[in-house]
């Protein structure tokens, strides 16, 4: 088990390196550097001397491979570079924002689990019932809904019309500000969880070992608790993990909509002012988050189901 864990963790490194390289290459082929966008105010031509000084200051005058080598050695020391705008280390800039993102992601996931899993379960135990149909129609809709639109409607209704909740902002961490963005972000994983749970229960309920358990006289409650729930949980935990991993990416638009001070809105803001080191750093953090959660899910999975380790 320990060897498997270590091996899976080591496998993250080459992927991370590839992602870093890909992001670096993409941002290095940019026509027009940060210096030129800083200088271009639309009225005067950029002063070449000034641009050269800016480029030198940020190390942008060195050849590409030297810059990539610098970047990677920096990464190995957890140095993500310096923000073009604030001149602060990128790591500090991200550190100031990531906790709000985590808070939002956890709240959204809790909402999705608490509502989605029981819904999927109940729907599957009564296939074809009204509740089942409504749940499944709701799940397909939830997967097709533009989340930011839902957020906008929730904001309109609960904040502006009813006045129950604040419409946007962080409010110094008050839970009242968390509710609307968390529900908005949680809708997609909720829909997916309801669907996965229902499909899982239906599939496993038809397996031979369930019939065996019933025919040997096991009570229905015990069949559900011992065989059904345990087997479905493997599937549900995987879905939760994958959704949690991709949540930071999905949160970008929601954070922007609700002016939530997380790394998603940091990314969008940095994109629009071309603060490349912060953009690169933020994307890298989102990818690290995704890879680590996935690895973690794999390890849990292997712990539950010993057959995985062979493959």
């Amino acid at each position: 088990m320990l060897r498997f864990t270590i091996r899976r963790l080591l496998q993250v490194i080459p992927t991370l390196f590839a992602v870093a390289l890909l992001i670096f290459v993409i941002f290095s082929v940019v026509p027009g550097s940060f210096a030129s966008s800083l200088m271009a105010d639309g009225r005067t031509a950029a002063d070449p001397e000034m641009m050269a000084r800016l480029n030198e200051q940020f190390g942008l005058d060195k050849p590409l491979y030297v810059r990539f080598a610098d970047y990677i050695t920096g990464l190995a020391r957890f140095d993500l570079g310096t923000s073009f705008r604030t001149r602060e280390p990128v790591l500090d800039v991200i550190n100031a924002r990531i906790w709000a993102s985590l808070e939002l992601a956890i709240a959204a996931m809790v909402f999705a689990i608490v509502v989605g899993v029981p819904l999927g379960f109940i729907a599957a135990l009564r296939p074809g019932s009204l509740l089942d149909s409504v749940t499944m129609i709701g799940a397909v809709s939830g997967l097709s809904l533009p989340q930011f639109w839902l957020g906008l409607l929730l904001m309109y209704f609960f904040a502006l019309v009813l006045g129950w909740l604040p419409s946007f902002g962080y409010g110094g961490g008050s839970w009242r500000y968390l509710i609307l963005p968390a529900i908005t972000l949680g809708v997609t994983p909720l829909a997916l969880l309801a669907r996965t749970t229902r499909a899982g229960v239906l599939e496993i309920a038809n397996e031979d070992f369930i019939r065996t358990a019933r025919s040997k006289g096991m009570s229905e409650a015990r069949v559900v608790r011992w065989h059904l729930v345990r087997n479905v949980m493997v599937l549900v935990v995987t879905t939760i993990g994958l959704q949690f991993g991709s949540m930071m990416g999905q949160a970008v638009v929601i954070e922007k909509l609700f002016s939530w001070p997380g790394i998603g809105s940091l990314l969008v803001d940095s994109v629009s002012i071309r603060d490349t080191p912060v953009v690169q750093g933020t994307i890298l953090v989102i990818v690290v988050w995704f890879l680590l959660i996935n690895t973690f899910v794999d390890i849990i999975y292997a712990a539950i189901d010993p057959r995985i380790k062979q493959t």
Partner: protein
Amino acid sequence: MKRFNLNLWLGGALVALVVVGAVFAPLLTSLDPVFDANLMYAEEPPDAQFWFGTDEQGRDVYTRVLYGARISLTVGIVSQIINSVIGLSLGISAAYWGGWWDDLVNGLTNTMLAIPSLIFALAIMAILGPGLPSLLIALGLTNWSWTCRIARSSTLSLKGLGYVQAARTLGYGDIRIMATQLLPNMIGPILVISTLGIGAAVLAEAALSFLGLGIRPPFPSWGSMLTGARELIVIAPWAAVFPGLAIFVTVLGFNLLGDGLRDLLDPHMRSRTA
């Protein structure tokens, strides 16, 4: 037992509705989505004259939603075609030739899968700047990894079969075998994933335009219409309701159509996950 495929028909109907709206937009409205602005009629609620109301510049929201379908469908379909071409050529060739090329394609696919596609598209938009061509490139380059995986695994299971061997014995070249012997045999799953991909691209376009990185105003992208509507949601909520509804209907249509196609083409799945 042959069961009525609700997903297929409902999804098909919704997609058809959007396509008709996009193609026949000039016949379905007499107004112009960009230039027919009249501040005399700003922020009018929906009525007989303006079915979906008007926005802050007095433009007809119904007209803008209709023309917005053109942008959404163009972005969705064209970017998905780019994705399919990339995914198919990489996936089939990787499995067929194997060796270092397979390793390279696999590495690239895994790397792409590690970056959330919206984030990757955002990064490309940041570099290329807003606009339709950038959107097509950004969304066309970010969502091919699943197509590639499917193409690769189909090729792996097909390439050892007798008829492929026979084609080789007959002296067919590699490219010809890939195009005429392997590709036609994976059309089903590719069609399913591509239909779902169009929905995802429509959603991504709306999100990017909403963030101000996609289609810029005054052009009627559903996403950028929502950006404008956000500012005046208290006065004119209809300007926010209808563009969002249009995105929802379009994406739902493609998702249902994709699910329906899967039920149709892969009878295994039919009884299990409806």
